[in-house]
């Protein structure tokens, strides 16, 4: 790593952020453990293991933060260097959109557009192949699950599927 991508006391040090997120999560787990009651060592309560796991999380996260400060770490940007970062971003957006559409639209009306988007947006496949794959695969899966395996997939507000 060169000086541009390995930084110590800078806010774009990715190791520092990872450690801080871990520390935050650890603090949250400790708080939840305390809320659930620790009990005693003779009779540990529901929060006992959570509380001590939270402490361990804070210790490990602290160690990551210290190492990020003293030894430095790669910048956030360098983690995505030479990567087509837009593609996973688009895929994430498609998946989030699908998760919102699944219940109201049902499986078929949400899976076909999802497949079409994935086939065309990320690494485009020609239309003549994308359309049949996007339509036939979800339809085929729906048929196998519903007719052969008798598994009811979400049919949505329109009752399709």
């Amino acid at each position, binding site marked *: 790593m060169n000086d541009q991508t390995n930084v110590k006391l800078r806010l774009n040090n990715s190791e520092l952020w990872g450690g801080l997120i871990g520390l935050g999560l650890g603090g949250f787990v400790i708080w939840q453990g305390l809320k659930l009651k620790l009990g005693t060592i003779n009779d540990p309560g529901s929060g006992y293991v959570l509380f001590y796991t939270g402490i361990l999380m804070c210790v490990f996260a602290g160690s990551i933060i210290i190492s990020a400060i003293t030894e430095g770490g790669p910048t956030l940007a360098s983690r995505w260097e030479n990567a087509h970062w837009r593609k996973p971003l688009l895929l994430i957006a498609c998946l989030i959109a699908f998760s919102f559409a699944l219940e109201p639209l049902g499986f078929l009306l949400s899976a076909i557009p999802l497949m079409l988007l994935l086939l065309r947006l990320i690494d485009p496949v020609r239309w003549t192949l994308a359309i049949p794959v996007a339509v036939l695969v979800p339809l085929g*899966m729906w048929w196998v699950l519903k007719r052969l*395996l008798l598994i009811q997939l979400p049919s949505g507000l329109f009752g399709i599927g």
Partner: protein
Amino acid sequence: MDTLLNVAHGFGVALLPINLLYCFIGVFIGTLVGVLPGIGPISAMSLLLPVTLSGTPESGIIMMAGIYYGSMYGGSTTSILVNIPGEAASVVTCIDGHQMAKQGRAGPALGISAFGSFIAGTFALIALMLVAPRLASIAIAFGPAEYFSLMVLGLVVLTFLTQGSMPKALLMACIGVVLGLIGLDSITAQPRLTFGRMELIDGIGLVPVVMGLFGVAEVLLNTEQAIKRDIINAKITQLLPNKADWQASAGPVARGTLLGFLLGILPGGGAVVASFASYALEKRLSKTPERFGHGAIEGVAGPESANNAAAGGAFIPLMTLGIPPNVVMALLLGAFVIHGLQPGPLLITQNPGLFWGIVASMYIGNVMLLILNLPMIGMWVQLLKLPYNILFPLIILFTILGVYCSSNNVFDVYVMIAFGIIGYFMRKLGYEPAPLVLAFVLGPMLENNLRKSLILSQGDLWTFVQRPISAACLALAMVLLIAPLLPTLRKKRELVALDEGA
């Protein structure tokens, strides 16, 4: 004599037509996912977990086990012919296997890989038959303190062997424990971390977590880089290795088998660790180590035998102690639980048909793989030509359906997508998901055994060091935790540390 009778009983179960069919489906799918880069045995097993519900426990578990060891066979094909490991345990096969293929020796590379895998798989099964019942009879005497310490050791070994910084792996393991504790407390029935959501009362499902972290996250990572495929197009002839190849491979196969089996038994170990360790061992023992990396057949024979032997060995801690040593075994534990079975010391005596049936089916599965794989290599090569931009939408669709079918609950699909996104960012920041998943499975058992031991000992923490097995496990865990602080041991760890995917 008892063992022989039990084996005969096992074959009686495994040779039932329905079990043969499930075994075939398992090894076929296993080879398929092993061949295809981007889908591993973990994703395939999660996907098919709901299918196991439709049949008997024997059939379902026979199929799941078949996927695991089948993927070990299939992974080598991709490594040798395309230089892309089909699954993590075949990473090391790429080094010499692909070089052999480039030199026009793809046939012997594939052949020795299949024969080595078969020999190792067979040895592992015989050892499993002999070791498991004895270990189970010892394990009956295990108390909660021993179980707790063994699980701690398993988690520490896995974090020790995981690529990258150990604090990161330990942090992941802790997060896994916390996620595993979501839902009702098994002792007090108090809801924990449910935030008022009814869907979380039973906790988060293993399938959406695994599919998200390993399936969706893997696809996200693959889409951001163009996968370069250097497929060997030449016709593959002469799959049988010649006399010189056999002479060179006999030692590596034997050593790889033994090493793989021992590493497979170790909690936290597994096929990936075994293949790397075998490669390092062969290179060190070789009189001509400079040939390694340039098409040495020993570099294929050793690791391929090791990863198959480890796959067999990994069944021992699961079947005898009820402790999954790696993520794949954790999924298999899920399959047992779905059928209301609890693997552990009593499984062999209470369900002999199930245990010996699974073991016998693995032997049959190994023979099926040997017969299937060599003649079908041409078909697998054709499959490898399927472009990733068509393959990944299909993987996404199958993961969504697999997760939905495992619970008939849309909430699990959301959980999977969330874990997919989290898994992607975790991997980008250098946090490996394997310790999280294993801790997620072990978390509730770990908590239960800790609390039970404290209640039984009336809060006396010495109970963990007064019992010899528990003390030995904790001492070993402590050594592994301290080891990375010492510069020489730290270097050694970096050499063996790897991305544990299986």
